[in-house]
C-alpha cells in the first residue's frame, strides 16, 4: 500500500524497509542502487534486491445516501446500518494510522471528505455521517466511475449501498476501480422484507426515488419478484468474484458486528471475495 507516512500495513509494493523480500532479474530502467553487487560478483548477473515496505493505508468510504437507503424497519433503515459500519471502520483505520476519506453520494457526491489520518479527522467523518439523510435518486454508476478517476493513488474503497441498479453497468464500475488498482470491498445492504416479499393484500408500491408506483397483488407477482431478485443477486456475486471484489451481502436484521467481524477476519487472512 502506498503512502507518504509509514503505517502498520504491509505494502503490496516493494519498498525500502529492512525486511528482505526476494531477488529478481534486472530490467533496464531499474534503479541501479538496488542491484546486489555481491550476487553479481558471484554469478556475473544483475539481480535486484527487494524488501517488504511498511506503509500507511488510504481508505475511501463510498456511502450511498439515495432515498432507497431509507427503506427498512421503523427502528433502523439501511442507511443507519451503513452509517454504523462506516463509522466503526473509519474509527479502526484512523486509530491504526491510516487515512480515511468519506464520499456520500446519491445522483452526485453530496459530501466529499478527502482522506486524512489525523485523529481530529474522525470527528469530521462522524459529523458528516450523522448529518447524512436518505434522499435523491441513485446514479451510482456515474458517481463510482467519477470517483475511480478522481482517486489517483491506490486506495482501499469501501462501498455501502443496496445496489439497486443495473448489474452490468455496476460491474463496469467495479472493473474500473480494479483497473485503477483500488482495493474494492462492497457491502450490499438488504432489508428482510425486500427478500421475502411477504405481503398478502393488494398494495400500491411507491418508488422511494421517483413518483412512479405499481399497484399489484403481491400474491400474483411474488414469484416473479423473487426470481428477479435472485437473478440480480446471483449476477452481482458472480461479477464480484470475476473482478476480485470483496463482496459482503448483509441483511439488516442481523447485528452489524457480525458482518464486520467476518470482513475484518477475511482481510487479516488475505483478501478475497466472500
Amino acid at each position, binding site marked *: 500500500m502506498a503512502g507518504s507516512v509509514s503505517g502498520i500495513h504491509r505494502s503490496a509494493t516493494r519498498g525500502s524497509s529492512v525486511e528482505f523480500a526476494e531477488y529478481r532479474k534486472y530490467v533496464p530502467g531499474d534503479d541501479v542502487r538496488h542491484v546486489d553487487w555481491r550476487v553479481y560478483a558471484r554469478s556475473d548477473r544483475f539481480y535486484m534486491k527487494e524488501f517488504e515496505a511498511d506503509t500507511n493505508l488510504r481508505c475511501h468510504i463510498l456511502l450511498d445516501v439515495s*432515498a*432507497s*437507503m*431509507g*427503506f427498512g424497519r421503523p427502528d433502523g433503515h*439501511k442507511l443507519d446500518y451503513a452509517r454504523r459500519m462506516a463509522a466503526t471502520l473509519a474509527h479502526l483505520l484512523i486509530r491504526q494510522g491510516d487515512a480515511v476519506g468519506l464520499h456520500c453520494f446519491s445522483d452526485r457526491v453530496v459530501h466529499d471528505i478527502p482522506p486524512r489520518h489525523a485523529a481530529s479527522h474522525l470527528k469530521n467523518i462522524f459529523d458528516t455521517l450523522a448529518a447524512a439523510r436518505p434522499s435523491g435518486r441513485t446514479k451510482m454508476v456515474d458517481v463510482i466511475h467519477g470517483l475511480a478517476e478522481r482517486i489517483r493513488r491506490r486506495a482501499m474503497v469501501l462501498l455501502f449501498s*443496496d445496489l*439497486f*441498479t443495473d448489474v452490468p453497468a455496476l460491474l463496469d464500475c467495479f472493473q474500473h476501480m480494479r483497473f485503477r488498482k483500488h482495493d474494492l470491498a462492497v457491502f450490499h445492504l*438488504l*432489508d428482510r422484507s*425486500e*427478500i*421475502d*416479499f411477504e*405481503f398478502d*393484500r*393488494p*398494495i*400500491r*408500491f*411507491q*418508488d*422511494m*426515488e421517483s413518483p*412512479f*408506483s*405499481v*399497484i*399489484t*397483488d403481491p*400474491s*400474483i*407477482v*411474488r*414469484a*416473479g*419478484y*423473487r*426470481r*428477479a*431478485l*435472485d437473478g*440480480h*443477486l*446471483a449476477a452481482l*456475486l458472480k461479477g464480484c468474484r470475476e473482478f476480485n471484489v470483496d463482496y459482503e*451481502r448483509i*441483511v439488516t436484521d442481523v447485528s452489524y458486528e457480525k458482518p464486520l467481524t467476518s470482513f475484518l477476519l477475511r482481510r487479516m487472512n488475505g483478501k478475497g471475495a466472500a
Partner: protein
Amino acid sequence: MEKARPDMVFLNPLLLLLLPAALLPVLIHLLNRLRYRTVPWAAVMFLVAATRSSVRRARVRQILVLLARMLVILFLVLALARPVLGGWLGLGIAGRPDTILVLLDRSAGMSAIHPHRRISKRETALKLFEEAGGLNPGRAVFIENVLCRPQTLASLSGLRELSLCAPTDTAADIPAMLDSAIEYMVASRAGRTEIWLASDLQRSNWHPDRGTWQSLNARLAAMPQDVILRVLDLSGESRHNISLSFSDFLRHGSAEGDLVFDITGTGGNPGAGRLPLVMALNGVRTAFDQELSSASVRCVRRINLPSGGEGGSWGRLIAPPDGNPRDNTLYFACGDIPDLRAIVLAEYEAVGRILQLSCAPAPDFPGRACTVAAPDAWSPGSEAETGLLVWQGELPGTNLRSRLSAFVEAGGNVLYLPPAAEEFTGGTDGNGSSSFGLRWADRETAHADSAFRVALWEENEGPLAGTLEGHALPLGEMACYRRARMTVADGLRDHWQTIAEFSDGAPLCARRLLGRGAVYAWATLPAPEWSTWGEGAVLVPMMQRLMLSGSRRLGNVEYAICGEWAPREDDTWLPAGEESGDVRWNAGVYRRGRRLLVLNRPPEEDLPECIPPGSIADLLPDVRVRVVEDLAARSDMPARSEVWWLVLCGATAFMAIESALLLQRNIRQPSAGRAVVRE
C-alpha cells in the same frame, strides 16, 4: 296434444332471485383491489420485472379462480331452485320417479273378483302396487277414496297390511282423488312424480261429465315437474254377480213394513231363475226365494216386525256368494214412527190451502199435520218438529236465512214457490245476497192455446221418482200457464241441480242438497191460473215424500249412504250387531243410544257401466296418461327429471377446480431469495 313446455323449469323459482350472488366473488375482488394500502418501496426494479414476466399468467389463473367461484355459487343457487330438465337431455338422465302417488279406489265395486285372478280387483291392485314399488324405490304417498288424505309411506311393500287399504262399501270420486294428489304435489313440491291410479273405471266413480276434469287437466299440465299418470285398468267384467241395493222401507202401522230393494244381475245368465235370499231380522234368519224376471228387478218384501223391540228392529238381506261379496248385503231398520208435519207459509191464501190439503188432508188425519200461515206472520222455532217447510212468496230475508239453513242441514226440506204478486223484488237484499243462492226472475205466461209442458224429470229418486209399482208420476200431463224463471248466484250454480225441466229447457224444479236435507225451488204455483199442479196427481205424492224424507231425522232411525255420511267428532256410533265395522266406510246398522243409523252402499256402485280406457286421455288431454294392466311394465314415456344432484355435482367440481388452482399457485411460490442470501 301436449303443450310445448320449456326444457328446463324450476320447482323453487323464487330462489333464482339469488342468482346475482354469483357476482359476489368479483365484487369482493374489486373491493379488495380498491382497498389497497400504499407502501414505500426501494426494490421497484424487481417489481417491474415481475409484473412483466408473471402477471399475465397469474392473471389468467386469477380469472379462472374467480370464474370457478362464480360458477360454484351459480350452481349452488340452481341446485337449491331444483331444476327439472326435459327434452333429450332429460331423457338421457331420467331415472326412477322421485315420488309415487298411489291412488287406490277401494269402493265396493273394487271388491269384485278379478276376471283373471282369484283375488279381488282391490287386492290385485295392491299386489301390483307392491311389485312395482319394489322396482321404484322412492317416496311413496298413498291416497284412498274415502278420506282422500295423502299419507306418506316408507315403502309400498307393506301396503296390503295397511288398514286404509281394507275393502269398503263406499263409492269413489276419482276427480276428488286426483285433486287431492295435485294439492299434495303443489304443497310438497315433489320432484318427478308418477301417479298410480288403480280403478275399475266405473263411470259413476269417474264422473266423466263433470266440469272439474278441465281444471284437473290444466293444473296437471301446468306442473313444473314431470307428472305421469298411470292408470291400472281393472275394468274387466267379473263372473256372474248379483247385487242387492236398498231402496226404501215403508212402515204399515207398528207391526208390518215393506222392504223395497233392487236386485241387479251382471255376467252369466242373471235374468233367469229364482234367487235364494236370507233375511236376518233382529238376529233371526229366514230363507226365501225371490223370483227374477229380468237382470234388474225391484222387489218388495213384506216384513212382520217383532213387537216390543227396545229401540226398534233392524236387519239385513243377504244374497248368496258370487262375483262380488261386497254387494250381497243390504241393511234396513225400523224404529219409532214420527208424525209427518209441514209448515206452509204462503202469501197467496188459495195456494196455502191447496198445499195444506196435499200435506194433511184433514186436521184430524192420523200421523199428518200441516200449519198454514203468511210468511211475514211466521215465527221461527216451530220448524224443529217439522219435516217440510213450504215458502211461497218473496224469498225470506237475511234474518231468517240462517234459521232455514240450520233446518235444512239438520235434515229438513224447504220448498220455495214463486210469489203470486206481479210486483216482487226477486229475493235479494240490499247486499245482493239471496237465499241459498236462489233468486226469482221475471215471470212468463204461456199462450192460451199452448201451455208449458214438462219434458224431463228425475224418475229414479227424489220427490218426483216413480211409484213402487214402477209407474211414473204424471208430470207430462201437467199443464203450466204461468211460471217464474229462477236464477242462481254465479258461485253456487254447481250446487243446484235441475230435477225437472220444461220442454223449452227452463227448469221447473231445482234442488240443492245441503247437509242432510235439501232445498227445492218450484217454478209454478198449484193455483188454477198458474198450472194444473194443484189437481194432486203430482202434488200430493211429491209433498208426502218431502214430508217423509224431511221427517226421518225426527224418528230414531236414520238412513244414509256409506261414505257420504260422516259422524260428528263427538258422536260414537257402534255396530248394532256383533260384526265389527267402521261407520266411515262399512255398510251396516250402527247404534248410538236409542238411535239407529243404517248405512248402505251407494246405489251407483251397482251400475256396471265403465268408461273406455281410451277416454281417460280425452279427459286429460295435456297430461301423460298411460293405461296399463301391469305397473311393473315400463313404457316409453318421455321424461322430465329433476337434476339438482347433477347441478350439485357441477358445483363440487368447480370447487375442486378452484382449490386446485389455489394449491398450484402456492406450490409454485419459490422460497424467497433466502438460499441466495445465505451464500
